[in-house]
C-alpha cells in the first residue's frame, strides 16, 4: 500500500485550471520530488496534500485514509517551508517542542524527543537561542527538526533550499538527504531546481502547466525524457528536427519527432571535411567547458568535462560536430 495516493486531483482558481487530473502514488519511505518551472502548480499540489488548499476535484489518500476534506491539523503531515516559518516568539527548543506540546505529550516525553532530534540535526548547543540568531542553514534544520519530532506520516518540503546561498545549499542538501534516510519518513519535495531533484530523489515527477509530463527514477527521466519539455527542462538537451538530424548526423527520424542529444554527448572537432558550424562562445565553468556552436542559425550547446580530450578551440573557429553516443533517443 502506498503512503500517499493522489487520485485525479484538479484545482481551479477563478475558472483557471492550475492542476489538471494529477495521479501519483508515493511509497513508504520514498523521497519523491515534484519538479517544474514556476507557475506549474507544484506548490498548489503540495498545499493540497497538506490540507492548506482543497482540490476542486479528485481525492487524496494518506496511509490509505481518504483525507481530501480533512483540515491540516488532523492530517499528521509536516511541512518544511521555503522561508522556514519558525515562530519568532519562541527559542529553538520551544519551536521544536511546539507540535508535541499541542498534542499534550508529557513533559518528559517532550524533553526526551526534542533533545534527541536536536542532536540529530546537530543543534543541541543552540537549544536555548533565539531563532533569529541562527544562520539560514541552521534555521532550516530547526524547521526540519520541528517536523521530524512529531513523527509525521509524510513530510512536505516547499523549496526548502532556495533561500540559501550556493555552498550552503549543497551542504544542507546532503544533510537533508541523510536525515530523511535515517528517519525513514516518506517525503514529498517540491523544487524548480532540476539538479536538486535529481540529486535527492528516489523518484521524480515533472510538472508543467498543471499536468504531469513524466514520472520515474532520476536516471530514467534524465536519459529517456518523455517529451521535448522534459528533455529541455531536466537535462537542457539539444533537440534536432528531422531535417537537421539527417543533415548533421545522418540519422533519419519521423517528421513529427525530434532527436535528443545531451550536452555532454556532443563535442566540437577540428576537421577539414566536416565544417558544420561556428563556435560563438566558450565558457570555462571550473569542471567543464561549455561551447555554444551555431549551425545555420541553430544554437547547439556542448558541455565537455575537463578530462575529455579536447583540441585547442577559440571563438570563431569553424568546427565539425562529433556524437559521443550511438543511442538514438527521440521525443514527440
Amino acid at each position: 500500500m502506498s503512503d500517499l495516493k493522489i487520485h485525479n486531483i484538479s484545482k481551479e482558481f477563478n475558472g483557471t485550471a492550475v492542476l489538471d487530473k494529477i495521479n501519483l502514488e508515493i511509497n513508504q519511505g520514498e523521497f519523491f520530488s515534484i519538479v517544474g518551472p514556476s507557475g506549474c502548480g507544484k506548490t498548489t499540489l503540495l498545499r493540497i496534500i497538506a490540507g492548506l488548499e482543497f482540490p476542486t476535484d479528485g481525492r487524496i489518500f494518506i496511509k490509505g485514509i481518504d483525507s481530501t476534506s480533512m483540515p491540516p491539523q488532523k492530517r499528521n503531515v509536516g511541512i518544511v517551508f521555503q522561508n522556514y516559518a519558525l515562530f519568532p516568539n519562541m527559542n529553538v527548543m520551544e519551536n521544536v517542542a511546539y507540535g508535541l506540546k499541542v498534542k499534550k505529550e508529557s513533559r518528559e516525553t517532550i524533553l526526551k524527543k526534542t533533545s534527541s532530534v536536536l542532536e540529530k540535526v546537530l543543534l543541541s548547543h543552540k537549544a536555548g537561542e533565539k531563532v533569529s540568531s541562527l544562520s539560514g542553514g541552521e534555521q532550516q534544520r530547526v524547521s526540519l527538526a520541528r517536523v521530524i519530532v512529531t513523527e509525521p506520516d509524510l513530510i512536505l518540503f516547499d523549496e526548502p533550499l532556495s533561500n540559501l546561498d550556493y555552498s550552503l545549499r549543497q551542504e544542507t542538501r546532503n544533510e537533508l538527504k541523510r536525515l530523511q534516510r535515517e528517519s525513514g519518513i516518506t517525503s514529498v519535495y517540491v523544487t524548480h531546481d532540476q539538479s536538486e531533484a535529481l540529486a535527492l530523489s528516489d523518484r521524480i515527477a515533472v510538472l508543467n502547466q498543471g499536468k504531469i509530463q513524466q514520472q520515474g527514477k532520476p536516471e530514467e527521466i534524465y536519459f529517456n525524457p518523455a517529451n521535448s519539455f522534459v528533455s529541455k527542462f531536466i537535462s537542457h538537451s539539444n533537440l534536432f528536427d528531422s531535417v537537421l538530424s539527417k543533415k548533421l548526423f545522418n540519422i533519419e527520424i519521423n517528421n513529427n519527432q525530434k532527436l535528443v542529444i545531451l550536452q555532454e554527448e556532443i563535442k566540437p572537432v577540428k576537421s577539414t571535411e566536416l565544417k558544420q558550424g561556428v563556435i560563438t562562445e566558450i565558457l570555462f565553468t571550473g569542471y567543464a567547458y561549455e561551447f555554444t556552436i551555431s549551425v545555420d542559425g541553430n544554437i547547439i550547446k556542448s558541455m565537455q568535462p575537463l578530462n575529455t580530450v579536447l583540441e585547442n578551440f577559440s571563438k570563431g573557429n569553424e568546427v565539425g560536430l562529433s556524437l559521443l553516443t550511438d543511442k538514438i533517443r527521440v521525443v514527440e
Partner: protein
Amino acid sequence: MKKKKFDASEYFLLFIVLFFSIGYILFPLYTLVSSALNDGNGNFGFSNFLNAFTKTTFQAAINSILLSLITVALSGITGLVFAYILHFQRIRTKSFFSSLLMIPLATPPLIGVVSFLFLLNEKGLLANLLELVFKHNELSFKFDGWSAIVIVHVYSFFPLFYLFTSSALKRIDSNLIDASYSLGASKTLTFFKVILPLLIPSVVGASLITFMASMASFSAPFIFGGSERFLTTEIYFAKINGDNSLASSIAVLLTIISIIFFILLRRYRTGKLFDIRHKGVPRTDFSSHRSQTSISGTIIISLFSLMLILPVFTLLYLSFIPEGSLMRNFLSESFTPENYLKIFSEPQFFEPFYNSLMMSLIAVLITLIAGISSAYLIAKVNTKFKSIIENIVSIPYGIPGTVIALSLILSFNKPVLFGAFTPLVGTFIIIPLAYSIRNIPILMQSSMSGFYSLDPSLEEASFSLGAGKMTTFGKVIFPLIFPSVLNGALLVFINSAGEFVSTILLYSYSTKTISVEIYSQIRMYNTGAAAAYGMLLFAVVMAVVYVSRKTIDKSITGI
C-alpha cells in the same frame, strides 16, 4: 489572504465590529446630520444651514481655515529646517533632541495651552524674569488672540513635520546624492532637484494631518481666542446656548471640511508615496555625509531644546508656588508642595484625577476589543468587505472631537438600543465612550500593522503541527502582534488621559476629569492647582511613553 468561510468565533467578532461601528460611529453621525437638516417643526431641509450662514459663522469658517493654513506653513518650515539641520549632526545630539520632541508630541493640547499661558502671559514666567533682569515694569506682554494660538499650534505640530521629514531623509540613498554630484550638480541644485522632491510626499502627508488637526483644534482657540471666532468654539457656544440645530449645522460644515482632507490624506498615502525602497542591494545611508557637530548647530539645538522644555518647566515651577501667585511677582515666592497635597488629601480634588484614569482605562478596553476584532477581520476576509470595515472604523479619525461629543449628546439624550435604553448624557460611561470612538482608528491601525507583518506561513506551520485555531492564535499570532497592539493601546491611553475637547461638552458635576478641572481652576485664577494637575497629567503621560518604549523594545528584541 484567501477567501475563507467564517466560523462561529469569527461571526462573533463580526457582531462586535458591526455593533460598535453602527451604534457608535454611524448612528451618532446620522443623528447629527438629521438634526442639522431638521428645522424644529419636523420639516427637513436646508433652512438651518441658511440660518447658520450668518456673518459670524462665515467669519469663523474663514478664521479656522486661515489658522490651519498659517499653522501648516509655520510648523512645516520649523520642522523641515530642524530635520535638515539635525540630519547632519552627530547621532548623540540627535537622539537627545528626538526624545525631547516627545514632550510636545505627547503633551495633551490643554496642557500645552496652559503652560504657554503661564510662560508668556503678561504676568507669566517670562515677564517676571525680564522684570527681574531689567528692573522695570513697563514691558507688557499681551499673550492672547491669533499670535498665542499660532505659537501653541506650532509648538504642538512642528514635531510631526520633523519626524516625517527626518524619516524620509533617513530613507534617501546616499548613492543618489553622490550620483547627482558626480553628474556635475552643485549642492544647491542637488538639494532642489534630488532631495526636496523625495521629501515632498512626507511634507504633504504631515501638512494634511496638521491641517485636519488645526481645523479640529479647540483648546487653544477656546482659551486664547477671546472675541475671535472659530468653527470648533462656535459649535461649543451654540451647544451651551441650547441651540442644537445651529450647533449641528456648524458641526456638519466642519465635518465636511475635515472629511475632505481626510479622504485626500488616505488617497495620498495609498497612491502617491515614492517608493524609495530597493530590492536586494543594501542601501547606503545618506547620513554617511554627516559632519561633526558645528558650533552654530550646537547653539541652535540648545536654544531649541530650551524652547521645548520651557513650557513644561513653567508648569513644574508654578505647581510648587502657592495659590494665586499669577497676580504677584511669583519669583519671590517660596516653594511648597501644598498644591499636590491638596489633590491627594481632599477627595473632591482627587476625584478628577481618578476619573481620568478610570475613563482612559475603560476607553483602552473598549478600543482593544473593537479594534483587534476589526483588524482581525480586515486581515482575514476578502477585499470588498475588508475595505468597508476599514473605512467605517477609520471615520472618527476625520471627525473633530467637538463634533463627536455633540453627536453623542444628540444621539443618547433619549433611551435608545445602543445606550442600553437609558439616556447616556450626563452619565459616567458616555465620556470613555467618546474617547473610544475618537481613538478606535488608532488601535485598529496598530493591530492591522501587526497582522500584516505576520508571515502567513507561521499560521500554516502551526496548523500542520496539529494546533487548532485557538491554540494558534494564543501561542503564535497574539504574542507576535502584541507589541503593535500594546503600542496602540498606550497611545489610546495617552490621548484619553488628557482629553479636553469632547469632555468639556460631556462632563457633569460628578464626572469631571482632570482636564476639565484644570480649566475650571484657571477660570478661578488658581494657577497652583491648575499647574499641579497639569504636572500630574504630564507625569502620567510621560510614564506611559517611557514604559511603552521600554516594553516595546523589549518585546521586539528580548525574546
